């Protein structure tokens, strides 16, 4: 990437009218992304947004950078080839719960294990919006939708656990209703060298309004969520009077009246085992047990990026065999002459 350039968020606004439904959570994400890119200072000519299909996948049209709005589920595969060919570009994948986890599930896990240096923003609204309201792979079991009038039978995916299972090198969660937190996470994803998976809880106010209300509404947020801070004890609650303690492998909510902060779980995003435990604080049963939903960077590690390893092999081949000579290639090793 070239030298840093000075931008404002407005510089990233394209000439296209944004066509999401009024009140959609996508607007907030677009705005935070534009701010984040302005702060990052990467030249616009070196940025590519790649998306699949779905409401969220219209995103690239609204960024004044390079962009491809591709086909359903394949943005991850498209971005892999792009990054392999052009390691110098800043590549962002915009996808949704259906695009990334249903039709594109295979490409997602393979991208994560290969660890191309790209960023994935997974807009999770637990519903199919563009096709007008069918359940998605993240919809809770029993959800009544147009395609599941008696309730969904599917056990939902847990995106964080799935990403960790695929050995993702950066796994984080944020929400549309907390712009400041989202910008922090997006900046973290941008800074991370390797594939960053950012799951964003995004409200679909038309087909699945309030799916995340318990985590986003002022009245319940403090008690139902916890913000992960690196090296900090896990404290939450409106009065900051609660914490999470690890009892062996089991997280439990404790009162700070009974325990001191030193007794609490200290967030360490380099600890894969602890990240796995965090990712498991997920289903509603656990919530009923009082565990708040975590937001922040669950896990990050430094691991070789695919495109770098690929280039190393090319360089090595050149150093061993020399720069390719086309005539030698065509000729091969055995020839004979006909007089």
């Amino acid at each position, binding site marked *: 990437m070239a030298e840093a350039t000075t931008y404002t968020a407005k510089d990233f606004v*394209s000439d*296209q009218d944004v066509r999401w439904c009024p009140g959609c959570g996508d607007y907030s994400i677009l705005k935070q992304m534009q701010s984040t890119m302005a702060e990052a200072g990467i030249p*616009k*000519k*070196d*940025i*590519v*947004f*790649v998306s699949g*299909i779905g409401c969220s996948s219209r995103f*690239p*049209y609204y*960024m*004044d*950078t*390079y*962009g*491809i*709005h*591709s*086909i359903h589920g*394949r943005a991850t*595969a*498209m*971005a*892999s*080839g*792009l*990054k*392999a*060919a*052009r390691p*110098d*570009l800043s590549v962002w994948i915009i996808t949704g719960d259906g695009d990334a986890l249903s039709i594109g599930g*295979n*490409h997602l896990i*393979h991208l994560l294990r290969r660890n191309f240096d790209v960023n994935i923003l997974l807009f999770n609204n637990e519903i199919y919006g563009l096709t007008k309201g069918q359940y998605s792979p993240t919809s809770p079991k029993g959800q009544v939708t147009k395609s599941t009038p008696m309730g969904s039978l599917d056990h939902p995916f847990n995106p964080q656990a799935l990403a960790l299972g695929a050995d993702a090198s950066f796994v984080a969660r944020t929400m549309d209703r907390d712009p400041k937190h989202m910008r922090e996470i997006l900046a973290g994803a941008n800074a991370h060298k390797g594939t960053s998976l950012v799951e964003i809880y995004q409200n679909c106010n038309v087909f699945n309004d309030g799916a995340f209300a318990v985590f986003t509404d002022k009245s319940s947020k403090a008690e139902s969520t916890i913000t992960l801070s690196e090296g900090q004890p896990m404290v939450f609650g409106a009065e900051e009077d609660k914490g999470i303690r690890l009892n062996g492998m089991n997280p439990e909510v404790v009162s700070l009246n009974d325990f001191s902060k030193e007794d609490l779980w200290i967030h360490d995003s380099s600890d894969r085992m602890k990240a796995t435990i965090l990712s498991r604080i997920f289903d509603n049963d656990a919530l009923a047990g009082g565990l708040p939903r975590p937001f922040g960077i669950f896990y990050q590690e430094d691991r070789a990026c695919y495109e770098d390893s*690929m280039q190393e*092999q*090319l360089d*090595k*081949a*050149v150093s*061993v*065999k*020399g*720069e*390719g000579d*086309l*005539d030698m*290639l*065509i*000729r*091969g090793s*055995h*020839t*004979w*002459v*006909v*007089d």
Partner: protein
Amino acid sequence: MTKTTEKKKDVTILFAGDSGDGMQLTGSLFTNTNALYGNDISTFPNFPAEIRAPQGTVAGVSGFKLHFASMDIFTPGDDVEVLVAMNAAALKANLSQLKVGGTVIANTSGFDKKNLRLAKYEDESNPLLDDTLDKFRVIEIDVTKMTKEALVNSGLGSKEIDRCKNMYVLGFLLWMYNRSMDTTRKFIEEKFANKEVIKDANLAVLKAGYYFGDTNETFTSRYEVESAHLPPGEYRSIMGNQATALGAIVATKKAGLDLFYGSYPITPASDILHELARHKNYGVKTFQAEDEIAAVCAAIGASYGGALGVTASSGPGIALKGEAIGLAITLEIPLLIINVQRGGPSTGLPTKTEQSDLMQAMYGRNGEAPLVIVSASNPSDCFEAISEAVRLTVEHMTPVMFLSDGFIANGSEPWSFPKASELPEIKPNYAHSEKSLHDGEYLPYKRNADLVREWAIPGMENLQHRVGGLEKDHETGNVSYDPENHELMVKVREEKVQLIAEDIPLQTIAQGEDSGKVLILGWGSTYGAIRTAVRSLIATGESVSQAHLRYINPFPKNLGDLMEGFEKVIIPEINNGQLVHLINAKYGIGAKSFTKIQGMPFTSKEIQEHIIQAL
């Protein structure tokens, strides 16, 4: 005693044995020796779909057919003259190909009770003992036993000894056809350079086979196929998939681009991936994707980034890539798709050849999605044909499908190769950071006279733009649902492809007069069989000509006129009649179809007989 040498114009040998018997290697080594003698050569391996089908069974038979000659040849031969049968199953599977009076070289220990039972010879009947082979000359050699004896002091185990027996057969054939062991020796010495014992064992067995022919008094005559009068020059042997890979690398370099190859393993296309992966020092990036869809999408991503994205597969994989190919068509970016066709539908006949994906190439996508189609007609032709495919996709900013098939992919022949400097330069139609702006605005879908848009690549200043699979405005590329714009874009994409007819060579007559009674029009791997058949008929004074298509979409612009010169047009195809539909739909000339759908190429005799009937 003295041994005589009989001269022959051409010989077709079929090496057949268990898939573990090393017949492919034996055939290849014998081929290399003959190539160095200056014979013209054509080969065709034929193997089972299973890696190791049950030993001794007909299903497990692997064959390698070699046709070598002192004249120009174009096919791996119709009838087999010498059949090497390492076991009873190999004989059973291939005897029908042996011509009357031909020779069977049988490994007698492959005809024991167990082998006969596995090959399903009823009631312990043994073809070597009953009248099955009365019409043939039979040379019985206990190859297994002789190999053991040659290696009695080698210290090798019986399994390792058994693996050397193909060298015995090879040694014997080298003697029989008056060839030196030098090339094979050199190969063995290089291959087993670090395995002294194995190297010595193979060399010893090779020699034993050779001297068996030399000293055994049963064999009184040897044969010789003199060198062919090929045009002077330097030659190498090349297989179709290899030529495809090399052609793609060279043409991509000629375009000043980097090659990105995304693919998923599939028979019979995988060898292209293997070949490309060996040439990383040419800047080739190979990516074994998680599936066919990811392979083509990664290639599209690479093309978007300014490389040449290439993907290859066979029919089933191409079906999976269909939606993404449609995307590349509407994005209007370079993408080279290689289809090494095999028998279908569905999984079909993975290791057998067929030309049945032409309609898939032409129409196998949703919507109006015209795809340029270029095909190769023989193994070495893959080099030039794929170079053309690269040129068209890069210079015309539209995906190109390159059609090969299992027959071409695995077949080999001598190739008088070109110099890189003699090959044409390919010129991408790049956008320019200043000159491409119109009143300060970049219009990604503005076109030149050939209706080709510019290639604006991330990293180019001022040209940021968004493309996608939704219908686009004809200039800005922004999403457009305007009814007239959609109709315009559909027509423009089609016209752009048809305009390529102005940028490809006119169709020529491959042999025969420019007009006459019958034109045999072919495409792809039928070239050799048609060429041989038409040559014979022309020699007997028949009014027959041959034209063979490389470009199928668009057709060369003179094709209609060219066909007008003939009373009848016959189109032989290894499918149920596909090109014939395209030709009749476009030109309405009532071309006749001649088909074979057995997973095997035409023999020239089949085509010749069909033409005679038609005359």
